[in-house]
C-alpha cells in the first residue's frame, strides 16, 4: 500500500485537505474560518476528481488539428463534474457569507457560540 500512496500523491493530498477542511468547518468558532474550511473541503474533492481524470502521457481534451484518436486525450467527464461542483460551491459560499454579514450587523461578533449565548439571553 505504501507504493500506491506515493504514486497516487494527488489523491492523498486531496484526502488530507478534505480532512483539514472538514475539521475546520466543524470545530472552529469563527464564521469566516468555517466558510474557509468549507471551501477547502470542496476544493479537495475537486482535486481528487481532477486527479482521477488524469491519464499519464495524454493531453487535455481540446481539439486542435482535428480529433486525434481516443487514446490521445484524458477523461473529460471529471472536468465537467468539477465545473458543476465549483458552481455549487460558489453558491453556498455566497449564501453563507450573506448570512454571516446579517449576523454581524445584528450582533457585532463573528463567534457562533457567542451569538448563541446572546440569543438565549434575549429570550426569543
Amino acid at each position, binding site marked *: 500500500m505504501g507504493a500506491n500512496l506515493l504514486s497516487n500523491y494527488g489523491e492523498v493530498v486531496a484526502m488530507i485537505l*478534505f480532512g483539514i477542511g472538514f475539521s475546520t468547518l466543524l470545530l472552529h468558532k469563527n464564521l469566516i474560518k468555517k466558510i474557509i474550511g468549507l471551501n477547502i473541503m470542496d476544493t479537495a474533492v475537486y482535486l*481528487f476528481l481532477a486527479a482521477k481524470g488524469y491519464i499519464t502521457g495524454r493531453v487535455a481534451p481540446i481539439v486542435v488539428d482535428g480529433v486525434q484518436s481516443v487514446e490521445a486525450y484524458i477523461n473529460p467527464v471529471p472536468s465537467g*463534474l468539477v465545473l458543476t461542483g465549483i458552481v455549487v460551491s460558489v453558491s*453556498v459560499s455566497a449564501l453563507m457569507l450573506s*448570512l454571516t454579514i446579517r449576523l454581524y450587523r445584528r450582533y457585532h461578533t463573528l463567534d*457562533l457560540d457567542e451569538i448563541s449565548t446572546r440569543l438565549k439571553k434575549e429570550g426569543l
Partner: protein
Amino acid sequence: MQFVQNLPFICIILSLFSGTVSSVLKEKAAKYVNLFVVSAIMLMSMFVLGYTLSTGTSYTYMMGHFPAPWGNEIRVGVLEAFMATFFCVIMLLSLLGGRKKLHQEVEITKHNLYYILTNLLLSSLLALVYTNDLFTAYVFVEINTISACGLIMIRQNGRTIEAAVRYMIMSLLGSGLLLLGICMLYDITGHLLMGNIQEAVAMLVAQNQYHIPLLVTIALMCVGLAIKSALFPFHSWLPDAYGYSTVSSAAMLSSLVSKGYIFLLFKLIYRVFGFEIFCQSKIINVLFVFGIMGMIFGSLSAIKENDIRRMISFSSVAQIGYIYMGIGLGTAAGIEASVFHVLSHAATKSLLFIAAIGLTDVSDGSRKFQDITGAAYRHKVAGITFTVGSLSMVGIPVFSGFISKMLFADAAVLNEGKMLPTLIALAISTILNAIYFMKTVIRIYTPIKTDYDIITFKKEPLYAVTCICFIALNVFLGINSVPILEFIQKGLAMFV
C-alpha cells in the same frame, strides 16, 4: 410513446420556470402562479401514476436528444409518481395553512422570494424522486439545501439566521461527504447512471475487487445523507430550524426536505448498490443503532422542552429515527415500513405544525406551555387537529401512525437478530411519545379563564379548511392503508 410519459419532465421544468419567473412578479401574482403550478404538478403526477399503474412497469425517459450514457435520463415508476403526488399535496396544504402567518411575519416585498424558494424546493424534490443519474442527484440535493436554508431565514430574526447558519454548516458537511462518495464510486465503476453502476458494482463484488473502496463509498454516502436528514447524532440543527421559522416553512422542512434525502437513500440502496450488497455491508447495523438511539433520545429531549414548536421538532428527530431503524432492519418488509412511515410522518408532522400555530395564535403569540393552557377551547379547529396529530404520533388505531408502528413491528418479527431491540425500542418510544403528546393534549383541553382572543371557523376559513384536509389525509392513510401498501410494494418491485 404517449404524451403522458412526458409529464414528469414537464413537471420539473414547470416548477423551475415558475421559480425563475416569480423573481419579477409582484406578491399576489407570485402567490397565484405558485398555487397554480403546485396544483398542476399534482394533477400531472396523478396522471403519471395512473399510467404507470395501468402499464405495470416503470419506464425510462430520455432527457434531450442523446440516449444514456451520453445524455441524461429519468426513470418513472409507481413509487416515484406516488411520491411526487404526495409531496405536492403536502406542499399545497402547508402553504395554505401557513399563509396568514406568512403575511404577518415576512415583509410584503419579500413574498415573491418566498415563492421562488418553494418552487425550487418542489423542483429539487421532483428531480430527486425521478432522477436516474447520480450526479444530477447531487446537484439537486444542493438546490434542495439552498432552498431549505432560504425557507428558514425568510423570517428575519436573530434565531432564524443562527438556525440557518447551523443548518448550512451541517448540511454542507453532509454534501461534502456525499460528493466524495459519488466521486469514489465514479472512480471504481466508471459510470454515473444508476443502472450501469449497479452492474459494475455487482461485477466488482463477484470478482472481489475493490472491496474496501466500495465499503468506504457506501459508508460515505450513507453518512452524508444521514447528516442531511438529521439522523441522531447529527440532529443539532433541527430544533432551531423547525422551531423558529415561519410555520409553512417548518411544515415543508419537516415533511418534505428530509424525505427527499431519505428517498435518495432508498434509490441508492435499490438501484445503485443493490439490496443484497447493501445489506452485507455493516453500514446497515450502524444506521439501525443510530435509528434506535434517535427514537429514544429524540423523545427524551422532547419531554424536557417548554416550547411547543421545539417539542414537535424533537419529535421529528425521533420519527426520522424510526425510518432509519426500518432501513437498518435489512429486509424488504423493513423498507416498506420505512416508506409508509415517510408518508405518514410527512402528513402528520405538517399537521402538527399548522395546528400548533393556531394554538399559539390564541395565546397572544406565546409558545410556552403555561400560556397555551386551554387553547383548544379558544380555537376549536386547531385543538381538534392537534389532538388528531398527537393520537397519530402515539399510534392509536384509525390514524396513520398506528399502521406505521404495526408495519415496523411486523418487519422486526421477521428478522431474528434485531427483533428484540426493535420491539423494545418501539415500546419505549411509544410510551415516551404518549408522555409528551398526551401531556400537551391534556393541557390544551384544560379549561381556564383568560383574556386571549378566540378564533372561530368563520374568522379564518382557509386555515380551518386546511386543517380539515390534513385530518382527512391522516385518517385516509390510517384506514385505507392496504391499497397504499400494495402501491408501495408494487412500486418497490419496479424500483429495482
